[in-house]
C-alpha cells in the first residue's frame, strides 16, 4: 500500500513472539490502531528487523527459544530505539522480579501473556497517547 502523498507513513511496530497465532493476533490489533507491523518468531529474525527498520513500538515475549531470553532483546530495543515504547509479555503473571527486570531492561510495560492481544495493544496505545513520546506517532 502506498501512503498518500504528503502524509506520514504509519508508525512501525515490531512483535517478537514464538507463537504464530499470537503474532497474528497482535498484528491484527496493531493494524486496527494504524500501525504497520513487522513480526519475528525468533531472535535472529528480530535482530535482522532491527537493522532494517525504525520502530516506534515493540512487543516482545520474554520467552523465545528459552525462558527469559526475550528480556535482553527488550534491552537492545530500548538502546537502539530510545523513544520507542517497549512492552514485554510474560508467560506468568508479572511479579516483583518481573517488574524489576522490566525496569532494568528498559521496558515500559509488562503484560500477562494470557491477556487478549487487543487489550494489550489498547493499553499500549493509551499510554503512547498520554506520553510525550506520542507527539510524533500517528495512532488511531
Amino acid at each position, binding site marked *: 500500500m502506498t501512503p498518500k502523498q504528503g502524509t506520514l507513513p504509519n508508525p512501525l511496530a515490531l512483535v517478537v513472539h514464538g507463537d504464530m497465532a499470537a503474532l497474528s493476533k497482535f498484528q491484527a490489533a496493531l493494524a486496527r490502531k494504524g500501525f504497520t507491523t513487522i513480526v519475528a518468531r525468533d531472535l535472529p529474525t528480530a535482530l535482522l528487523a532491527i537493522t532494517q527498520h525504525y520502530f516506534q513500538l515493540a512487543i516482545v515475549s520474554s520467552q523465545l527459544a528459552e525462558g527469559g531470553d526475550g528480556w535482553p532483546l527488550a534491552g537492545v530495543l530500548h538502546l537502539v530505539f530510545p523513544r520507542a515504547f517497549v512492552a514485554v509479555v510474560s508467560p506468568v503473571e508479572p511479579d516483583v522480579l518481573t517488574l524489576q527486570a522490566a*525496569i532494568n531492561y528498559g521496558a515500559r510495560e509488562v503484560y500477562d501473556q494470557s491477556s487478549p492481544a487487543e487489550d494489550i495493544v489498547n493499553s499500549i496505545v493509551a499510554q503512547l497517547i498520554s506520553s510525550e513520546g506520542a507527539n510524533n506517532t500517528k495512532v488511531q
Partner: protein
Amino acid sequence: MALQRSVLLVDDESSILQTLRLVFEHEGYTVSTAESCAEAVGLLSNGHDFDAVITDLNMEKDDIGLEVARVALKGRPKPAVIICTGFASMANSRAAMDMGVDYMAHKPVELQELISALNRLIARHREFEGKK
C-alpha cells in the same frame, strides 16, 4: 579524555554512604551525599546537576526514595536514576517503573553490577540528552 561524572548518593545509613562514596570516587565520580529524602530534594531543587542519582527506598518513611526519584526525574538534563532496596514490592516496583526509574538494584547490592549499570546508563543518558 576522561569525562567528569557526578553522582548523588542518598541513604540514611552513613556507613553505606561512606562505602559507596569510596567506591564511586575510586571509579572517578564526583560524589555528593544526602542522608534523607528532604536533603536530597533540597540538593536536586537548588540547581545541582548530577549525572546520576542512587537512592535508598526506605529512609525517613517507607518508599520515600520514590520521592527522590520523582524529583530527580524532573531534572533537565535528566539524570540516570537508580533505586537500591531490600524491600521491593509490587506497589513500589510498579511506581518506579511508571515514573521511569532506570534501574532497580537489590540489597545487598553487587557493587560491580551497580558500577556497570551506572556507567552504561550515564553513557546512554549523555548521548540521548546531548550532554557532553
